[in-house]
């Protein structure tokens, strides 16, 4: 497996929203989920996750509650709000367009230019 890629600035929020959209998760769980769904291609620095989580809560995109984890530890679980779900869809669309555009741009051959 290749070394994990550097996160582009601004993409962490989208990844968090995506991870949480699959079901409520605690912080550590979000990290694992991101690693899993990116097939190990993206690695988020553990501590850096929390400022982003608090920011998303402040923006009203996530909501949080304390619950007990599967291995009996108290942990704070995050879940999408309605606004968060909407935002996640919008940003996913935006990202797809961007990725496609960049993909086209980078795939361009000399004769088409």
């Amino acid at each position, binding site marked *: 497996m290749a070394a994990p890629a550097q996160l582009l600035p601004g993409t962490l929020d989208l990844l968090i929203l995506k991870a949480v959209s699959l079901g409520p998760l605690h*912080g550590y769980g979000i990290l694992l989920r991101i690693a899993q769904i990116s097939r190990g291609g993206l690695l988020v620095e*553990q501590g850096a996750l929390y*400022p982003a989580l*608090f920011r998303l809560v402040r923006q*009203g995109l996530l909501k949080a509650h304390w619950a007990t984890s599967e291995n009996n530890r*108290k*942990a704070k679980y995050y879940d999408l709000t309605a*606004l968060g779900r909407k935002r996640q869809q919008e940003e996913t669309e935006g990202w797809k367009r961007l990725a496609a555009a960049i993909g086209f741009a980078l795939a361009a051959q000399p004769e088409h230019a």
Partner: protein
Amino acid sequence: MTRVGAYLRSLAARCLHRHETEDDLAAELESHIQLRADDLVRSGLDRATAERQARVEFGGKARFADEARDAIAGSVVETLVRDVRFSVRQLRRAPSFTTTAIITLAVAIGANAVVFSAVNGFMLRPMNLPHEETLYTLERADRDATESYPNYVDLRDRNRAFDGLAAFTLDPGWVTIGRDGDAIRSWLFEVSGNYFDVVGVQPYLGRFFHAGDEHGANSVPYVVLTYSYWRNHFQGDHGVVGRTVLLNRHPFTIIGVAPPAFRGTVLIFAADLFVPLVDQEQIDGTSLLNDRANRWLTVLGHRKGVVTPAQAVADLNEIAAQLQLAYPKEDENFKVLLTHSTLGGDAFEDAVHAFLVALMLLAGLILLATCANLGSLFAARAADRSREVALRLALGAGSGRILRQLFTESVLIALVGGAAGLWGSVLVLSWLANWHPFPQFSIRLPIDPDPRVYVVALLLSIISGFVFGAVPVRQVLRTDPYQVVKSGSANPVGRRMSIRDLLLGVQIAICAVLVTFAIVAVRELSRSLHGNLGVDPHNVLLVDTDLRMAGYSQERISAMQQRMLAAIRAVPRVTSVGLVGVSPPMHVSWNETDLFAPDAVDLKPSKAAAHAIQYSVSPDYFHAAGTRLLAGRTFTVHDNTIGPRVAIVNELLARKLYGSGASAIDRVFKLPDGKRVQIVGIAEDGKYTANLGDATPLAIFFPLLQVPSNETWMVVRSPEDPQQLSAAIRGQLRALDSGLPSFIETWTRDMSGALFAPRVAAVSLGVLGLLGAIVAVTGIFGTAAYSLSKRLKELGIRTALGARRMDVIEAALGRAFGVLALGSLVGLVLGLLASRVLASIVYQASPRDPLVLIGAVVAMFMLGLVATWIPARRALAVDPLILLRAE
């Protein structure tokens, strides 16, 4: 909407449940680490290793917690609150540092607030009158702000540039309330009929008199009371309108009360009553209303909106030119200026303003010295805390965060100190504003604080907080965590000390300037009090009576004066008694006259050989006043209306007229009325007015019998206790005429009225000097104590190795003393240079006075001794054994 809602909820949660949120964050991060550790255990590590590795993987927990907090709503407020709480904790841990810093700053901010209040009251919001920006006072080109009544009337009626011109003057008078009331000495604003309309004030009660009420001399039998006079003497009785009072024994009807804020149009003088100017003959006994040459009125008015100031001046000067043409003798050199003056318009106002600006500068210097002082304290503190700072840097705190913390601390101290200083200054100011230094004058100081003062104090506090907080910034930014942790000290000692030495030097130089000024001021004050006054005011009572008011006609006044002299001479233990008119030397008012050469034909003021202050005195006056006669004789009873006109001049005047003192005897000069007068005696020089910058005090004395005076001041010399003596004098006067009002005061107290301005100047400079000294002492003490604490071990070793006491002291304090000496020297030189400027403004003091120099050097040395006394004792008390054990 939801977003805003979420933000507000989050903010509310942060504010209401701060501890919960804080615990919540910690718990969440901890749970993360535990969950990660669980995974690591599952992969085969033991629990302890797993947890350690989880923490390492997590990275700088403190930093992420900080960033997370920043991401939470309300972070700005929150961060500030947290910084403040942290600062309070830090400052509580160093109570002596905090207390010193707060007190020093309170003193400096307080001094600035007091001085700024004065600037505010005198220069920024002078009178609080309606449309003050267009209100002007007329002033002659020679900066004299008075006009004669006929000139005033011509200017008022002919000008086209003003919405009316009003005139006023100040005069003491005696007011009798009720049939059997005692006469109360009161201050009258004698004003023109249109005065209230021109100034634009409305009555609080009743009505004011108007221009339409005037129908020639003595035609307006009305008075208007000021609010405070109404409260004090009429108990705020609303039925006062229509009542009659006796003003100098003439009945006047009270028609109104002025609003509380309006006490006349002279800034520092509060009137008691407003009386019509046209009644001057009734009120004063004499009338100047037809005298064009005698200038005694202040003229003021609102410029019309459509007229520019230059056009207004041109308009007035056109009239002045016509008047000069018509009355060449009375209206010589008639040129008019406009000023916004509220202090009488003359050079006095400039002196006051210049002095206030100088005071503000000095107060600013004190604040600067304080900032230098606190800056070096903060630098020392930052150095002591370098280990803490280094640890926080190493744990991932950004240097911005640490600087913010330092500034929070310094601004916090500045705000607390500023608040304390402001509180103190408000106390001082309200005391000063209600201060009536002299019962015989109605002086008020317009220095009560207003919001502007509070804002300035707040701004000064914040600015100083940033200034002294900025001193250790470089030091903190340079901190290298690894070095600190390794060696225990952030920087090599020598380098850091030199910045602090510089700050101390600056501070000491500033303080030396202030101390020099203070000594110049105090010396000048003592000179003005004990210098050659030309009279001996000790053991002398002044008796001010008013014969006109007691109903004496011009002809009977002289006879009555002689009887009064005889009566008081009969009082036991009275050494001598003299009589002087118009008022004694060093009183607030005086008369002047022009003197001409004996053969002079043209008797215009500009052709005068000399201009002198004039007194009319009885033969015994010189003895009673303690004025020595240097040559010739005093007056006798034969110097009367039948005998030839004679005069006594002071030595300076004799020199000015004839070149030398002795040769003036028997010489002759001419008065403005053309009379020839022979000089029969030379009196010693003295001080006659407390006028600032009055450099050539020329005086001439006439015999009372030849130049009679309506105003009767008796100078009574006696070793008797003033209280008993005045009772005896009152008894004698009552026996002569039971209706004769009198005001008795020791001469020294009377002089204090004239010396008011120079005294205030001297006292304020003295106080600032004292404050400067306090700042210098704390600065030197702080530096000495700090450097000593850093070197205790070294000193202990020196003592152990047998160093003598002097060596130890030198090692401990030599540096502080070196800086003290250098700083003092610089300050002294600056002070001498600057006090020449100061002297030209307020004092005639010579700053090169050796006493001032020696005084300043001694003062700075003593300050150094005081400040280093405790550190020196600690240095000597160093016990090497205890020190080594402590390590």
